[in-house]
């Protein structure tokens, strides 16, 4: 059995670790609150934009744009894919990073000719360590998602798409479904699937045809970029929210584990201490008894 000193040291170290995890929990929860309010504020814009593109597309179903998936019967696209992988800058967030990376690896397996665009230090590090080439990595964007950053990423991806280097563009990000569950998704950003826009029928029906100024193609071309940068922006924010949430849950679990460990250790410590005291008393009383017997003789 370990001595009191060792147990005491152990208790101290567990306490110190708990202080750190507790601080991280608090930081993650404030960051989460901030990120969540950001997400709430960008939602109306993004939902309206998505709805409008859907409706434009419906009014003019035969519009031909390079952003749309070739109609049925055309040869399938099998060129190089581009994939934007959104990870965190730091670990200690439960399975958050692993889930994203697993999704990316699954994708690489299915289609080896994929160029990776990585957001976040963790992902960059992981792919570098496993000798998986990265086309481009964006540093320090996972921490602080801004529209400018999203625009920059969008410009790089769109440029590759426009020049025909990338046939399809995917985004792998983590979606926070509610405050408890979040899951890694891979979504195709470009080209758009015609059905993707047409199927959902919740929005208002078009009663009167719209007049397009100057033309449908010009309008679509102009808003496509905002749509993609908007999508990337909301994916960044969504991922950031999930990251903080994952970290919060992980740190909460760590706190609880530390609590349990401390309970067990202090029990053990008290037992050892008690045993030591009992032994000492036994020794003292045995010694005294021996003395008494010697004197009475």
């Amino acid at each position: 059995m370990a001595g009191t000193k060792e147990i005491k040291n152990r208790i101290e170290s567990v306490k110190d670790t708990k202080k750190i995890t507790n601080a991280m929990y608090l930081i993650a929860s404030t960051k989460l609150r901030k990120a969540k309010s950001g997400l709430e504020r960008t939602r109306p814009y993004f939902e309206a934009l998505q709805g409008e593109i859907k409706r434009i597309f419906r009014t003019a179903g035969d519009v031909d744009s390079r952003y749309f998936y070739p109609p049925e019967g055309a040869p399938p696209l099998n060129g190089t894919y581009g994939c934007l992988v959104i990870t965190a800058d730091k670990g200690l967030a439960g399975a958050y990073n692993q889930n994203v990376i697993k999704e990316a690896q699954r994708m690489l397996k299915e289609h080896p000719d994929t160029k990776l665009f990585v957001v976040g230090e963790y992902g960059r590090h992981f792919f570098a360590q496993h000798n998986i080439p990265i086309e481009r990595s964006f540093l320090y964007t996972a921490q602080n998602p801004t529209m400018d950053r999203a625009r920059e990423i969008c410009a790089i991806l769109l440029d590759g798409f426009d020049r025909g280097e990338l046939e399809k563009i995917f985004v792998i990000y983590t979606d926070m479904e509610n405050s408890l569950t979040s899951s890694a998704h891979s979504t195709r950003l470009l080209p758009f699937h015609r059905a993707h826009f047409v199927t959902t029928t919740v929005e208002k029906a078009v009663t009167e045809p719209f007049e397009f100024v100057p033309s449908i193609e010009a309008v679509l071309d102009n808003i496509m970029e905002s749509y993609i940068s908007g999508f990337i922006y909301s994916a960044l924010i969504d991922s950031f929210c999930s990251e903080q949430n994952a970290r919060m849950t992980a740190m909460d679990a760590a706190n609880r584990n530390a609590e349990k460990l401390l309970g067990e250790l202090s029990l053990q410590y008290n037992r050892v201490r008690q045993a030591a005291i009992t032994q000492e008393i036994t020794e003292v009383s045995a010694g005294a008894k021996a003395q008494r017997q010697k004197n009475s003789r």
Partner: protein
Amino acid sequence: MNTFQVHIFHANSPFYEGECESLILPTTEGDYGILANHSNMIAAVVPGTMTYRLPGQPEQLAAVSAGLVKVENNDVLVLVDSAERPEEIDANRAERAAAEAKEAILQRKTVQEYKLAQANLARAINRLRVKRSFHQ
């Protein structure tokens, strides 16, 4: 004067929602004015100055970037990447951004960086223009 409902959203937050008397937006075809009972239409918005007048208030300006505007049954929806009121614009920051963008253009890097710098310059100059007209 007749009014119409307007919803102006930009990427970070809703900008304005409510009644409006007149709205002028920069489009690919030049400035486009919208009054009440405008016919249904959709147009592409380019970076520039948006002018709007709310009931009982003088005309106000805002710097907007690319997006779209939709008019449907007297209900106007403006979706832009960013929309800023003059008082929200930091002139020093915009000037700095403009200088940086000009420098980046001069450096003649890749096409894609050039395009990005050009877009940044357009945004910065547009901000400055709105800010200056606000002070006069």
